């Protein structure tokens, strides 16, 4: 704890101004810290339907991303998550308008869609008909909550280096991590490849248009991709990837059985937690048991694999502070301490202005302190540094 407070004290002044005075060395935060922060904030968001709190979460996310993102390719993707979030809200609203849930005399009528009559045996679903302001607003806030959670995940993807995040996978899943890393780097490489081919065609004054031009691009790009993957495979093979290891048949079977049972336990536990009528034994105990079995399976599978890490990510006070402020905000929102739980879900039927409960708002702002608790990202502009970095971490 003293380390955390020390970090806070140190960070307060230079946090807003990276590189100012050189008091905080710029470095990338441990990716897991960002993930914990973002997932905790998403958990906090799942608790509330209050549009004011949701907008506050979006503002906080925007702030932290602007202040602490790097210049890496994955760090420029947040606007796509915002588009996705907007799409989610729009789909919710359109669906609520089309498959209307009914209008009551107390509601504010806005417009009416043409009504599609359904037979009696299909009476539960109504298509078209009058649409009320309340229905649209409730759909929009419902969509906004999902949109906020999406943006939280987007923030984690933007702030954390995905390739470094995959390093913390347990040893048993190392091959999986390698596969994901390779597949993550495919898209930028494809884009590069397409651009290269396109430039080459322009230099050769290729004038073909339409489908023929497409063929002219696709074939070289595919060839390029194939060649590149063969090269990568050869490189990985020479470094010892994909070796079977020293596992005996029995230990491999034991690992498989443990993992399978653990997954079954996790599924049953999740079901038990979500369904209130399920027997109590199916809920939390099954979840814990499944988690323990999975951990045991991963430990057993990972025991025979030894990996060394080149330049391990440190976990220092700043990591504790960022992860801690996220978790603390989630805990505050779930604690019901100092505020009325009803304020988290303001009523839309009948329409009323949402209130801004003090403790949850403060909790969300607390999560926003990650913007200056985290160290400033390492200096981006020099072109050689990021290129080197991406290569070494692949």
């Amino acid at each position, binding site marked *: 704890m003293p380390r955390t407070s020390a970090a806070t004290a140190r960070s307060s002044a230079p946090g*807003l*101004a*990276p*590189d*100012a005075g050189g008091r905080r060395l710029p470095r990338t935060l441990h990716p897991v810290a960002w993930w914990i922060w973002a997932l905790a904030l998403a958990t906090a968001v799942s608790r509330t*339907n209050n549009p*004011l709190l949701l*907008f*506050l979460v*979006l*503002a906080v996310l*925007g*702030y932290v991303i*602007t*202040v602490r993102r790097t210049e890496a390719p994955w760090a420029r993707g947040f606007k796509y998550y915002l588009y996705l979030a907007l799409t989610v809200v729009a789909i919710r609203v359109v669906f*609520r308008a089309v498959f*209307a*849930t*009914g*209008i*009551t*005399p107390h*509601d504010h009528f806005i417009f009416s869609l043409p*009504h599609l*009559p359904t037979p009696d045996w299909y*009476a*539960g*679903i*109504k298509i078209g*008909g*009058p649409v009320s302001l*309340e*229905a649209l607003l*409730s759909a929009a806030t*419902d969509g906004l909550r999902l949109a906020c959670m999406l943006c939280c995940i987007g923030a984690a993807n933007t702030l954390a280096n995905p390739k470094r995040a995959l390093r913390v996978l347990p040893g048993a899943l190392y091959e999986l991590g390698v596969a994901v890393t390779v597949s993550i780097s495919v898209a930028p490489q494809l884009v590069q490849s397409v651009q290269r081919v396109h430039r080459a065609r322009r230099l050769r004054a290729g004038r073909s248009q339409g489908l023929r031009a497409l063929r002219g691009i696709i074939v070289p790009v595919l060839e390029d991709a194939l060649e590149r993957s063969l090269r990568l495979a050869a490189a990985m093979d020479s470094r010892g990837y994909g070796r079977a290891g020293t596992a005996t048949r029995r230990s491999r079977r034991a690992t498989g059985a443990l993992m399978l049972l653990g997954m079954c336990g996790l599924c049953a536990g999740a*079901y038990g937690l979500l*369904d*209130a*009528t*399920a027997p109590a034994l199916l809920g939390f105990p099954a979840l814990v048991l499944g988690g323990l079995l999975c951990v045991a399976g991963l430990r057993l599978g990972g025991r025979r694999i030894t990996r060394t890490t080149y330049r391990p990510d440190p976990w220092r006070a700043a990591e504790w502070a960022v992860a801690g402020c996220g978790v603390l905000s989630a805990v505050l929102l779930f604690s019901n301490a100092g505020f*009325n*739980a*009803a304020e*988290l*879900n303001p*009523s*839309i*039927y*009948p*329409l*009323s*202005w*949402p*209130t*801004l409960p003090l403790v949850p*708002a403060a909790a969300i702002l607390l999560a*926003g302190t990650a*913007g200056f608790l985290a160290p400033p990202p390492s200096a*981006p*502009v020099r072109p050689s540094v990021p290129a080197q970095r991406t290569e070494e971490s692949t």
Partner: protein
Amino acid sequence: MTARQGARGLARTTTALGLTVAAFAATTAPAAAAPQPMGQCTTSSGAVLAVDFSHWGGPIYRSCGTTPTTGYELLNQGGWRTTGTGHDGPAFICRIGYSGHQGGKQYPTPQQDDCVLTPPASAYWSYWHADPGQNTWTYSQLGAMLYKPRPGSVDLWIFGGTNIEGTQGRPTVTPDQLRAKNTRPTGGGPVPRDTRTAAPLPPGVDTGPAPGNPPPADRATPPPPSPSRSVTASPTPSKIVSPTPTPTPTPSATPSATTGSPAVAAPSPKVVDAAPAADAAHDAGSWVPAVITGALGLLIGAAAVFAAKRRRRTE
């Protein structure tokens, strides 16, 4: 087990989501439905609405509405109000409140259920009907916005859980304890003369054991939900019959020891007639928090822009 529960949940959702033409026809012409004092409901006209608040220590309220109506409208007039869920809209009845009970407080309270998602099958308002002349409850196959109560029928909302076999969570009161017994409407005020004409109404019901006003008593015995209750109920008819006039002098919102009392077997809650009342006052709240949030958001945005600019300058 799981599949069945899933199916049950689905059925609940679909039934509770009553979104029909009917609902809209009714809402576009709302003049047809109106709250009425309990005396206006008879055996052949009007629909009786009963809501069981005994889960929170309250009584069973019953009130009356004119019939070309839907279950939803019946539940949203004369001081009654419901709240839907954020996920399903107003058609899924999540909370029910009556302005004459606890100042219109709606149950379950936000602390008990936040009404964001569909409530669990173990704690929700289940919807039961009894058509005229029927003394058994049927679980509603339609949602409140879709179902149209027949004249002389009883709609009952009880809170709790139900299982798929229909053996758990059945109402503990019988329809006859709640339904209107008078054949003619009895004015708005206290009109204590209606019961004497109650005898001839239910066709094909033997009025054997009851001397005065038989229908409630003897109908309660033949289709008993549990045999034990019928046994305990059997001594009571004599008791009921004599107090039959008593239900009538209490048509408006006074606790009446109506036919609710004889069911000794169950911890039967009181049945109280709920008079049409004005809607509970609704406070739309203030717009100040929204403005504060907007200002806060702008402040954070300005901080972000400032930081980004400064960062760009230092590089």
